[in-house]
């Protein structure tokens, strides 16, 4: 039974994503004005904010897939969780890279242990742990349940991790001249807001396009496995 996005609709999704990506690139790089304080480096935010939001969306889907899998034990929920985790790792890693590159012209350093970057790094570690857990357990169904449990625990832990890291960074502000938590929300020009919105939707659509591809791949891999077993190979 085909539960995935059919090939045509996937194609439209991809095309729509591409259009929005191009529009977003134009709006973000050319149309929107540079920031009063950060200059053109602020344009990196058009990547950074959509990336992190997409990463969290991914984790949420891992959670949903994990819950459904533990409840109904249907393979496709496991495939959803696995696919979302794989793409989630990518977007999380990109978020960190973007944040780091943004940090260099803005704060003068490639890395700082501010709340945002630290949290994203922890999220990456959790995702990576999830993928490692899957690959290190031999038996398929055991790997799926193990990963599902980790996915649920991880997701429930994230609000707590958030709170603890933010408190840590705000209650114990190190005596430095850098103000890492100064958000780029000051002086937000309407064109900037539009650029952000367009890029956000571009990322989300692109994410779902990649997810649908990856999901279908997962289904095919599963089918191949079952067929091979049936044929006694």
């Amino acid at each position: 039974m085909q539960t995935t996005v059919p090939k045509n609709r996937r194609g439209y999704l991809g095309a729509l994503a591409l259009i929005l990506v191009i529009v977003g690139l134009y709006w973000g790089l050319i149309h929107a004005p540079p920031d009063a304080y950060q200059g053109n480096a602020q344009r990196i935010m058009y990547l950074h904010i959509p990336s992190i939001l997409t990463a969290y969306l991914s984790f949420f889907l891992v959670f949903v897939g994990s819950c459904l899998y533990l409840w109904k034990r249907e393979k496709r929920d496991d495939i959803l969780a696995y696919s979302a985790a794989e793409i989630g790792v990518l977007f999380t890693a990109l978020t960190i890279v973007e944040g780091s590159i943004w940090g260099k012209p803005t704060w003068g350093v490639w890395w700082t242990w501010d709340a945002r970057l630290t949290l994203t790094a922890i999220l990456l570690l959790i995702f990576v742990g999830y993928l490692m857990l899957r690959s290190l357990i031999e038996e398929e169904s055991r790997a799926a349940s193990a990963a599902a449990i980790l996915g649920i625990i991880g997701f429930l832990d994230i609000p707590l991790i958030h709170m603890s890291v933010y408190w840590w960074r705000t209650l114990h502000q190190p005596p430095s001249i850098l103000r890492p938590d100064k958000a780029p929300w000051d002086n937000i020009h309407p064109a900037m807001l539009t650029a952000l919105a367009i890029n956000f939707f571009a990322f989300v659509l692109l994410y779902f396009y990649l997810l649908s591809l990856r999901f279908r791949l997962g289904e095919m891999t599963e089918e191949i496995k079952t067929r091979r077993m049936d044929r006694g190979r």
Partner: protein
Amino acid sequence: MKLLRQTYLLLRKDLVLELRRRESLLTMFFFGTLLLFVFHFSFDLVPEKVTEMAPALLWLAFLFTGTLGLTQLFEAERTNHCLDALLLSPMDRGALFLAKTCFNIILMVAVEIVVVPLFWILFNLRSWEGVPLLLGVAFLGTIGFCVLGTLLSGVTLKARARELLLPLVLFPLMVPVILATIRCMEAILRNGNIGDAVPWLRLLLGFDVIFVTVGILIFDWAIDV
């Protein structure tokens, strides 16, 4: 309550086994002490620095020692398909989770009760008045660590590179416990009581409550080791 009674029975079994052979307890204790020595050499701990760094060093030592205990947690059940037998029995699986968690908590607390005074002696810390409260906070942190640790230990039983995988997946999830416990301990050493670290204490308690509940539910429902 049936759950508690079953938990007690399983826990008693593990404690009796442990008291007879003392494998886990001794290794954990010596490892914890060894870490203190390593810290002394690595950080060149002068008296001024020690009070500042004590909470972090202690908690780090407990984390690594606890991880040691976790990898051995289901050791007794590994041979002769004991674990399968336990899971097949009409026993409430949540009881197995609670029993294993309590067992690890007891081991870690036993180590902590010895290592903390040892730390005080070895590093010539003057005032002993915060120590009981410190141990209390460490106890709460230990609960959080053991709850998640037991869950993940059960889940990774059949994984390859298990001793490496378990810390890898556990430690990022432990961030709230690490931060909260150390901040509370710092406040205790600074002021003699919790003081302004109360939010951290609440976070720690919340963590413990949430994951004990989640742990029981998941073990009951989802574990198929």
